[in-house]
């Protein structure tokens, strides 16, 4: 399921990333890699703040829905 549907506070594992090559590479360099852990810190109207590799990343809904967990 897309990251947008994961519950806040729960640790999940990235299964894959959809979308354009460029987007995927950018997300990878930020730490979103297959098998990596992601936790949603907070949610605001679909936009998310997530914890990935100890960094806080803000993602819009469109971007978060490209990350499958």
């Amino acid at each position, binding site marked *: 399921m897309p990251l947008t549907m994961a519950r806040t506070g729960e640790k999940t594992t990235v299964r894959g990333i959809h979308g354009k090559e460029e987007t995927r590479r950018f997300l990878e*360099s930020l730490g979103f*890699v*297959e098998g990596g852990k992601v936790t949603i810190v907070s949610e*605001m109207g679909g936009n998310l703040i997530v914890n990935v590799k100890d960094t806080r990343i*803000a*993602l819009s809904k469109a971007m978060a829905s490209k990350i499958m967990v």
Partner: protein
Amino acid sequence: MAIKLALAGNPNCGKTTMFNDLTGSSQYVGNWPGVTVEKKEGKLRGHQDVIVTDLPGIYSLSPYTLEEVVTRDYIMNEHPDVVINLVDASNIERNLYLTTQVTEMGIPVIIALNMIDIVKKNGDRIDTHKLAAALGCEVIETSAVKGAGSKEVADRAVQMARAGIMTRPQHTFSGPVEDALARIRELAADLVPAENARWYSIKLFERDARVLERLRLPADVKAELETIVSDCEKQFDDDSESIITNERYQYISGLMKSCVQKKNAGMTTSDRIDKVVTNRWLALPIFAAVMFVVYYVSVSWLGTIVTDWTNDTLFAETVQPLAGGWLEAAGAAEWLTGLVVDGIIGGVGAVLGFVPQMFILFFFLSILEDCGYMARVAFIMDRIFRKFGLSGKSFIPMLISSGCGVPGIMATRTIENEKDRRMTIMTTTFIPCGAKLPIIALIAGAVFPEITWMAPATYFFGIFMVILSGVILKKTRMFAGDPAPFVMELPQYHFPAPKGVLIHMWERGKAFIIKAGTVIFVACGVIWFLQNFGFTAGGFGMVEDENMSMLAAIGGVIAPIFAPLGFGNWQAAVASVSGLVAKENVVGTFGVLFGLGEVGEDDPALLASLPTLFATSASALAFMVFNLTCAPCFAAIGAIRREMMSAKWTWFAIGYMTGMAYIMAFIINQLGGAFFYGVPFGAGQVLALCCVAALLYLLFRSCNPDRKMRKPATVGAGA
């Protein structure tokens, strides 16, 4: 020979703070050739022969963003003697991803393990010796904010450069990948420099477009390379770039287990603050409260005190009489005294009066940015801005533009998407800047003294124009498509480093001072000359009656253009044009034109004379709207030119702003006059209604880029 040190690292890892610490005030800020990515250089303190370069903040060395390409090219082509790689120890795992790439480039690397104080405070432990051994380069603990360790790193880097110590990357990939890399290395042995062979083989394996383009491999080598790479891809069932990425992270994960001990993985203080600050309900009220305090202090309270002091005490009571006295004592001609005291000192002084106010505002904005709150603001506003076709990152330039448009336009650099960035540049100066406040105060005071909400209303009008433009422009072919999805790292909250805040504030504010010293300095002299000299019956000379001056003649030529807007007289025309030099000139020009000398926007004589220029109050409103919305001052136009990097786009931006300003002022003057001030309904009103209809059409038309591809829509129908 000079030693070149380069600072590389992720965004928000404290790179700029360390750079400031290392170079002090000897900085030179410019652009990397050909791109609008900032380049900062400076001399290492205490070493005249050591140059430090601050590379852009990047997450990796892939070829996908400008910043990454700039960094790569710099390291490959300019060969810095040592790269100082800053690693944010508080999120070491992600930061080391870049480190594994930097160490491959065949340049000596030293690691500054920054923000080590945060790690220690959290009770975590990092084994730096093990880490150094595993990465193949020295690791030194630092805390740039506290100024600890920076000097040590730089000194060690200089020693390394002098001693010629090399860095050998220690990390390896899995067997099959290493096999493939070895084969590629052999294949390309004659084509790439030996010291960078490792880096080139990895890039060739990744099919890096820029490297392939530069190397221009012979066809047979290319075919051979493709076989090697695709064999490996089949084995892993993944593309080559992802294989490398995953293996890098795997290597780092292994490293984490052996070198880093985490006390607990619970919520950090930063998370707890975010829980409140980015809360669904509290986020906007908190933001509004913060902004209210910032503007109240910097514009209303403290700002007014210092501005009044600068204007009234420093210039009016001290500098002007002093200069006048000197000139008289020196026996200067009357016209020269007039030029210097009233023209130049008066004009430049009026501008410098804003400087303290501007600096206080930028001081607060720098604090908000430095402590990490601004990144959250972009996140909070993204939800709202997205509805109008802009991204949350567009909000920060607009906030800064409320002080001065020049740094506001420069702040658009953080927007990666080119369309979003251009649109933000085109709309950000709609927000009234500090220099436009006197225009608002003047018109509000002279024409609408009973309406107290006039000033805030102009800000809302600015926001309205931004939204209107966002929606309209998004529906044209040039800007079609959703704003880029929002992704942004949120740095941990921390107390801002005073030095960083001050440098930041100065960088933003200095454009204003430079403007006062250069453009305005000259323009004030020119306007003073044009207005005091003219051709009379007795030939060319100083004129008593200003209606005879050259300025009146020039204004008279331009004035008819503004007639439909309700201010087709030469005074208002000249005031509007002088606003191009600097918006604060508009008020000053009126003052001079009414023969009142140096006046403030609340001068009673000026307030009394002004309404005579306008047919109705609607015309006065139109005058204000036009001057707030049209092309910004020359300094801001220059900034637009630099950021757009294209004359065509600059003209388009200026044309768009002026066109919109003209249409808005036209509608206000014609319809406002007809509905509220009894102007008879005529052709002008009909045309104004047509403009409204055209705007509504552009605003609400359905947007289908496919259809538009076949049949280009006509834009700007209202003009």
